[in-house]
């Protein structure tokens, strides 16, 4: 029993250690550079949406002119 609980605590301990050592983009959030990524992604999204809107308008115009 003692052995088992020892193994359990050891496992728990390594899990906690691991959880703290997981490399995340913490630095990126601290110095704000993650916002650069968001800006790039939003620009691409805006470009694609603009393209769709223009296409939609064009098709609407064609539908009216037929």
């Amino acid at each position, binding site marked *: 029993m003692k052995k088992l609980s020892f193994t359990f605590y050891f496992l728990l301990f390594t899990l906690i250690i*691991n*959880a703290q*050592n*997981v*490399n*995340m*983009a913490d630095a990126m*959030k601290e110095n704000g550079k*993650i916002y650069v*990524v*968001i800006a790039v*992604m*939003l620009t691409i*999204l805006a470009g694609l*949406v603009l393209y*769709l*809107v223009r*296409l*939609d*308008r064009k*098709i*609407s115009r*064609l*539908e009216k002119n*037929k």
Partner: protein
Amino acid sequence: MRKSWWKILGVLLLVYTFIAGLLIEVPRNPQLQETIRNLFFHVCMWFGMMILFIVSFVRAIMYLRTNNHIHDIASRQYAGVGILFGVLGYITGAIWMSYTWIDSNKSVFNSFDTIAREPKLIGAAIALLVYAAYLVLRDSIQDIDKRARIGAVYNIFAFAMLFPSIWIIPRLLDSLHPGGSEGNPALDPGSASANMRLVFYPAIAGWTLIGVWIATLKIRMKILYEQKLSQ
């Protein structure tokens, strides 16, 4: 622009996904690290694909009931955009796996023999190929009525193939994906934190709405084209 409130909603949901998806607190998973945020992009592609295929299936049935060619065109275009989403899901999955699933003792190329056994990859490949065959079959028939009827019937078969290939078999076998043989992938409350689901569900809706928008544009274009031909 026609009936645009849901298009605006879709765009707003995607803007929210892009901002919140990168900024919210995510679980610190030692294997995934920050790539866990791919849930809002990669997984949403597959959800969008399933929803678009369901719409395609419904329009195929509507064609068979009414013989209205608009349903046939719609069914074809929804399937096309669904395949696009599936291919994007495959590509994004390939990028994601080469950073999280590879055996660190081997090269990416040599780890592929274990990854290729992943049932979800095989199932999704079968589903996409079955739908690709739908496009080939429908578009290769010249007669417009025959094309629509055979296409619609095959579409129903293709949809039936989705059940074993992406909904049943991957749930029965062990998998590298979360929720392999013991549960529901992606929608299982255990595999995504409450925080993440706050972004995940709007992301599914946003991506799907964009897919529907693209499909409606293609449908309207095809209808214009057919009218031009018949003049």
